[in-house]
């Protein structure tokens, strides 16, 4: 249901609009490239529009970096690495990063509103999840800078040099934090490329970086499309590429890196299994299913998009899930009561709609939330499919939208087999009141993260990453440090 003004019918109680204010934020008409703590016009002289997916209005123009611009950024990062960042003490690195974290926290509200405008995600999520987690990531890693010897005892560590980082559009600021914080702490300098639909919070972060007095060249932020990212990957003076995005692009990056000596970590797609046993806390499991697939409109690499329900409770659980979906509020992402915001881009909406059609053609049974969608902007109703098989396209391919497939299972062995029967292996959820069952499953599920009786929980201290085609390398926690260090025995 869309947010509407209260029409005050007998017992109806509809929440009045409660829009987060945008009066305190500042978005420039045009953004240049952030190199050496300066705003530099792109040599291409090309710019592209970034729009608000909730109403399709243009928010700003963003510089489109070409190979020459990428070279400038890498050179700046190299100089900063050689002359400053690798020379200063670990304690000083730590101080800079703590300062950045504090200043982000002070500007949390502004960052949240801009994230919501640019990405379409509900303000509740950007305010309560994205921005606090991004800040916490910096806070967490800042403390590690002078303690690397304790993270890797009896081993010597060395920074890598200049790191190229390419991040996706689903958690723009949070992904920037996940990438930048450990790289800097370990002593590397960074060239970061945000996704083309969501550059704004990274550029806002650039303003904070400058204001915080981080030495010039330590963090460079270059914007653009796929070709910009490609130029970064192929640049000869990069020591490592860290990428989060689709498996398709991840494979292309891996091919490009073969034989170059550059390191890489890839965090790619997923089709994660969320498994509900008949002894699970059902009502909380329903919340976990909703959170697993509808959080951030399903634009989550570890979304619990394949639901496996034990057959003897399937009917009851699906009915409860449908009832719960009826209370989800879809609409303006800036409304504090919005649960489901806008799909990030027109292209993504078309992809999701294509999959919904495939599901219908395959003969699966569709259920969607009621109510009309807003007239403008890219929206998709939360959708579930029942009567889905393991061999349905819908349950095999990553959709990256609010679309859940539901399959039933009979035994624990069957569900382990089915859950692992995927080229992906990013995450999984297990719902049961029985502790022994949880441990049995966590050791057998081939997934980087297994959540028990919860889903989509993130913490900077906890490593995150995938099995199989979901990528390699870990981000977060002590493991995330190792990805940015040479470890010498």
């Amino acid at each position, binding site marked *: 249901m869309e947010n509407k*003004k*209260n029409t*005050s019918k*007998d*017992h*109806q*109680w*509809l*929440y*009045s*609009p*409660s829009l987060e204010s945008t009066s305190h934020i500042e978005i420039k008409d045009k953004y240049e490239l952030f190199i050496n703590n300066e705003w530099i016009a792109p040599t291409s002289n090309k710019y592209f529009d970034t729009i608000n997916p909730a109403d399709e209005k243009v928010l700003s123009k963003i510089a489109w970096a070409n190979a020459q611009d990428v070279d400038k950024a890498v050179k700046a990062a190299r100089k900063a690495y050689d002359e400053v960042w690798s020379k200063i003490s670990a304690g000083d690195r730590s101080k800079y990063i703590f300062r950045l974290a504090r200043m982000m926290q002070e500007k949390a509200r502004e960052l949240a509103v801009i994230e919501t405008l640019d990405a379409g995600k509900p303000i*509740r999520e950007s305010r*309560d999840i994205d921005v606090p987690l991004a800040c916490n990531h910096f806070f967490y890693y800042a403390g590690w800078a002078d303690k690397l010897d304790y993270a890797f005892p009896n081993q010597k560590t060395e920074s890598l040099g200049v790191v190229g980082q390419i991040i996706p559009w689903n958690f723009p600021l949070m992904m920037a934090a996940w990438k930048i914080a450990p790289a800097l702490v370990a002593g590397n300098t960074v060239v970061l490329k945000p996704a083309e639909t969501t550059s704004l919070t990274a550029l806002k972060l650039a303003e904070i970086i400058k204001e915080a007095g981080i030495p010039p060249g330590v963090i460079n932020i270059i914007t653009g499309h796929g070709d910009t990212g490609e130029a970064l990957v192929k640049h000869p003076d990069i020591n490592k590429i860290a990428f989060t995005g689709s498996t398709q692009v991840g494979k292309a990056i891996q091919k490009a890196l073969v034989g170059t000596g550059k390191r890489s970590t890839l965090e790619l797609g997923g089709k994660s299994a969320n498994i509900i046993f008949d*002894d*699970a*806390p*059902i*009502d*909380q499991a329903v*919340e*976990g299913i909703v959170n697993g697939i509808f959080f951030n409109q399903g634009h989550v690499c570890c979304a619990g998009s394949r639901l496996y329900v034990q057959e003897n409770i399937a009917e009851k659980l699906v*009915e409860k899930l449908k009832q719960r979906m009826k*209370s989800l509020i879809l609409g303006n992402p800036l409304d*504090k*009561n919005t649960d489901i915001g806008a799909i990030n881009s027109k292209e993504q909406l078309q992809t999701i709609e294509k999959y919904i059609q495939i599901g219908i053609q395959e003969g699966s049974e569709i259920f969607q939330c009621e109510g009309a969608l807003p007239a403008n902007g890219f929206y998709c109703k939360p959708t579930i499919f029942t009567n889905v098989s393991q061999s349905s396209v819908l349950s095999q391919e990553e959709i990256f939208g609010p679309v859940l497939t539901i399959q039933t299972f009979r035994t624990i062995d069957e569900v382990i087999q089915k859950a692992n029967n995927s080229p992906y292996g990013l995450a999984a959820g297990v719902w049961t*009141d029985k502790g022994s069952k949880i441990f049995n499953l966590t050791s057998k599920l081939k997934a980087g993260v297994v959540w028990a*009786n*919860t889903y989509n929980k993130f913490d900077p201290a906890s490593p995150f990453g995938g099995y199989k085609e979901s990528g390699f390398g870990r981000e977060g926690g002590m493991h995330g440090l190792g990805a940015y260090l040479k470890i010498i025995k």
Partner: protein
Amino acid sequence: MLESNQHSIFQTINAASPIDKVGVEERVARFQTRSIKDDAKAQGLKMVLSMIDLTTLEGKDTPGKVKQMCFKAHHLHDLHPNLPQVAAVCVYPSMVAIAKQALKGTSVKIASVATAFPSGQSNLEIKLADVKLAVDSGADEIDMVISRGKFLSGEYNFVFDEIAMIKEACGVARLKVILETGELCTLDNVRKASDIAMYAGADFIKTSTGKIQPAATMQVTYTMLLAIKDYFEATGKMIGMKPAGGISTSKLALHNLVMVNEILGPNWLHNKWFRFGASSLANDVLMQLLKLESGSYQSPNYFTLD
């Protein structure tokens, strides 16, 4: 109640799924992020007023105190037109006749606690007599307490039968069953006690007496609302809910209504199906309502303390 029937009821009760406390806390926190503004807030606050059981349950209650509270029940704030009156007053059985007299000609209901409130530590005869006193004195609603000691020692049949017999003694009066959730300790127990009460004939289930802390936490109310929903899905019968104890601010009351709205739906947003047991909530709601209209808070001295 036929024995085989009761056996199958207990099968249903035992089949309730376990409750994960961490998950409940998360869900409840989510309800608290709902932002209720403008028209929705005014409508919500008026609903809250109309759902209050204005309560005094003290050893020092006197006819004077009860009469004054009854007057307030239908004259919440006469300076302001179009305000609802509260749903009911809630008093001890000895005060029911006085309340009845004081509320003559109004539609404010009279609720009375009974069954050796608040501990429930007496025998069935005395509990039934307590109920009879309240009903004979004119109570429209009976708020009974369950035998928590029996519940905790696993004598669920005893608890069930006691509720069923008291329901019978109520006659036309509606029965609210107080679980005293602060003494049941776990949400699984709250769920089980809710199921027993509903299947035994409760018209309402109620969290607490107000004498034990914690009382009506949102976690407990949430658990009971889910039990009501499952019961409705299984039987088609609507059961009312009454959180009592500890709800003293408008904000908390509105968050409770948000839970009702989103779990049970708008059909329950009526004082026939939802009540707040509270003594100090009304004035805070009045203050917020007037602030919505005038834009500024008035001094507490403008709100009467009865």
